């Protein structure tokens, strides 16, 4: 029974032959082909039982052609000779039918760093293994008089990019993630984990955290909104970094005068260091971007100073410099994106972050964060599943979830302490962030 659950991905040689064959058939002056193929499964649970349980296999073949200064892009989710002809013909037809536009250059060949992100154990995880994991969490919650909810996923994928200038990259990876909310009669807790190797996900460790949080977060009482000193756990910090990336770290946002980044100026506290590194094995590395450019490490905020931006081929061309390897799939009007984020650790044990706080708020995670004012880096959102009052250095009681409306830069400008440990948070869409927990001097809760 195990055999049908091994992730079924096309063999690397066959995949490359398909891509090179497609490039050779193209009548365009420049052609790029990107193939993404994945085989994944997800087991979802609610009220201490599995209620949804799914698996899929799919592929995307995306072709970009440049013909007479005009660009066409087409995709198809089949990988065979007739699909190759179809997708190529459609891309060429689009290019031929349109007026001339700005041509995004294709990169030439460059060696990318090899990073290992494959686990046979993840690729061959079975539905029974996922069910056992989930059952264990549900059983722990049930014994504690609580209810568990969540999702546990395992999957394998490969990404390959080739172009007519000689680029030919291939990378395969696996990923396992689990998140859980555990609820009591009057409150809930949250925890998640992610790893390349499914064997690193420890069900007892996850259950310990989420059940403890749920038990401590019962019968929360309201607290007056206002400005509080806060400790943000890694879940909240990772989300904040994602929004900084979304609104400020892209060269396009800077070129269009939308970014909060002011190059060379100090924009946060001096202890804050944020960078993007697509090949650091402690993140979720991918050695090249969706244009086939090897990923470079980019220091975004160094000692509190805005120090760098991420570039793709288009923004690099406009700026007269090289891409940093942060391009998204064509056609892309959103600009480059930093998706392998890191925030540097500090020296404080996480457990001690609250120890000097007279009166403050401990935040487990954020929810439904949205940008209110991009240039002032103001976001709004709610706290969720574990908001606590800190009094005289100790967490004293749970408080009702609060809405915050806060400038991210202002918040980080008041960084008082950073945990010495960091946690990997894998995005549900693209990339990951490895971040510490932080203590911030002022955070505005508006309701």
């Amino acid at each position: 029974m195990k055999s049908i659950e091994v992730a079924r991905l096309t063999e690397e040689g066959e995949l490359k032959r398909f891509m090179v064959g497609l490039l050779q058939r193209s009548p365009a002056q420049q052609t790029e082909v990107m193939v993404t193929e994945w085989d994944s499964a997800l087991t979802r649970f609610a009220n201490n039982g599995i209620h949804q349980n799914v698996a899929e296999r799919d592929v995307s073949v995306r072709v970009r052609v440049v013909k007479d200064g005009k660009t066409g892009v087409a995709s198809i989710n089949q990988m065979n000779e007739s699909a190759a002809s179809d997708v190529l013909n459609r891309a060429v037809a689009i290019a031929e039918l349109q007026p001339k536009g700005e041509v995004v250059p294709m990169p030439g060949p460059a060696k990318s760093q090899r990073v290992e992100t494959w686990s046979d154990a993840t690729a061959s995880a079975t539905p029974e293994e996922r069910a056992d994991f989930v059952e264990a969490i549900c059983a722990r919650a049930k014994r504690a008089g609580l209810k568990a909810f969540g999702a546990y996923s395992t999957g394998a994928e490969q990404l390959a990019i080739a172009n007519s200038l000689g680029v030919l990259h291939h990378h395969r990876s696996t990923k396992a993630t689990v998140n859980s909310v555990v609820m009591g009669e009057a409150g809930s807790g949250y925890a998640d984990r992610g790893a390349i190797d499914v064997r690193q996900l420890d069900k007892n460790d996850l259950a310990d955290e989420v059940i403890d949080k749920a038990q401590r977060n019962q019968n929360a009482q309201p607290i007056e909104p206002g400005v509080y000193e806060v400790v943000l756990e890694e879940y909240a910090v990772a989300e904040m970094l994602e929004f900084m990336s979304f609104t400020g770290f892209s060269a396009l946002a800077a070129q269009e005068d939308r970014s909060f980044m002011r190059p060379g100026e100090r924009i946060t506290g001096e202890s804050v260091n944020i960078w993007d590194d697509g090949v650091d094995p402690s993140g979720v590395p991918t050695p090249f971007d969706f244009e086939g450019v090897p990923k470079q490490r980019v220091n975004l905020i160094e000692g509190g100073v805005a120090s760098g931006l991420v570039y793709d081929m288009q923004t690099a061309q406009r700026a007269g410099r090289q891409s940093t390897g942060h391009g998204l799939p064509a056609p892309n009007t959103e600009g480059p994106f930093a998706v392998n984020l890191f925030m540097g650790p500090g020296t404080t044990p996480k457990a001690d972050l609250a120890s000097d706080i007279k009166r403050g708020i401990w935040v487990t995670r954020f929810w439904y964060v949205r940008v209110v004012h991009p240039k002032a880096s103001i976001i709004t959102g709610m706290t969720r599943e574990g908001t606590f009052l800190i009094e005289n250095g100790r967490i004293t009681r749970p408080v009702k979830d609060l809405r915050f409306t806060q400038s991210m830069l202002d918040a980080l400008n008041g960084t008082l302490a950073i945990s010495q440990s960091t946690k990997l948070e894998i995005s549900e869409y693209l990339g990951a962030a490895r971040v510490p927990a932080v203590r911030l001097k002022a955070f505005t809760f508006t309701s």
Partner: protein
Amino acid sequence: MKDLAEAALNAAQIKGAAYADVRLDERVQQDITVKNGQLAAVSDDASEGFGVRVLVDGAWGFAGSARLKQDEVQEVVERAIRIARASARARSVPVDLGPPVTSRGHYRTPVERDPFTVPLTEKVELLLRADQAMGAVKGVTIREGSMEFIKQTKVFASTEGAYTEQELYESGAGIEATATSPDEVQNRSYPNSFGRHQGAGGYEYITALELDRHGQRIGEEAVALLLAPQCPSGVRTLILDASQVALQVHESCGHPTELDRVFGMEAAYAGTSFMTPEKLKHLQYGSPKVSITADALTPTGLGTFGWDDEGVPAQRSFLIQEGLFVGYLTSRETASVLGQQSNGTMRADGWNRIPLIRMTNVSLQPGDSTLEQMIAETKDGVYMETNRSWSIDDKRLNFQFGTQLAYEIVNGKRGRMLKNATYAGITPEFWNSCDAVGGKSEWQVWGLANCGKGQPPQVAHVAHGAAPTRFQNVKVGILK
């Protein structure tokens, strides 16, 4: 298609499924973006595949594949069955689907002009004309316009005998002007935000928008916003334009009436709901001016179809009737828990996803006022238009929205333009403060093509009919 569907259902039954359904789905999509006077992106995407959902020992399993081949069907069914058996080991209560569903037939979105037959040049020229109109305004720094066209062909078949075929079309377009200063980024978009205004229909939907007629106006508004005063903080009368009301309905009525959320099936992701079953027919959700329906028969609505993805026919039902909470959006599985039958809201984001309860066209019914009348009756208030930011808690109670444009209202007259306007509230308090809803002449169906839900994530295309609406004693102006 039919052969593959039958093969999947037969295989599922032979392997022990008490119930099975299969969806074969083919989707083509064209996206066009014009930016700053140039064609920035055109793409043509195609996806096809099938998904098999089985019920074994009272538990669900689902598997999907892009390979539409007989041998793959057998393997995918086997995978779905194995997954269902694994689910059964750790399920809580067995799934009860209620009475069988045996729908049969064909449905096609009414289309006057197939968008896939319209020349690309015609589409690009329209976007470039709108771009030129925005570009004529000094101070506009970014101009963007886009179109999207989708054709989806779906076959649904089940072991209960249902067999339906649907051809669904969507067309959408929008333009946006941005102006920046050292401290501000201000956007104005038409007809809506979120990139586009989208509906079920053909290219006639695009033509009717008259994009090029609105470029100059939104450009001028974006530039004017840079110098406009900040929306002051306070508790005021609030009048929302129809598009913002549509989003308010979506977030604070559509989502909390999804019965799967109520039962905790989304608790670890999208959240739960404050509209729990004991409140049904008891909660005064809004004022008597507030009636909200879920109607999958609404012309041009993105939630309009023949049957949902469980084969249940499209239908209309009340969620809120004259302010009283009277109904949920349901599936077969969730409705049976309440002793009801599904009202047909299960939809999947493609062949590779299971159907979830999704809004159809959830609409605030028209009232008897007009925007001008509401303004004339208001002494001290703010009028807000076109969404800019949106956030609501996991139970759908505590919300905060921002809009692109606002005007103060003083003694029944529209006053100064205001920037960075926001408002916040608690859902039932807010809707109970509603004292005027615009009439049929100002009521419009607004498409929303970015509704996220589920794990793995799914995006649904839904719609909301709405007219300008007024609320009293609302907290506005969160930013100092």
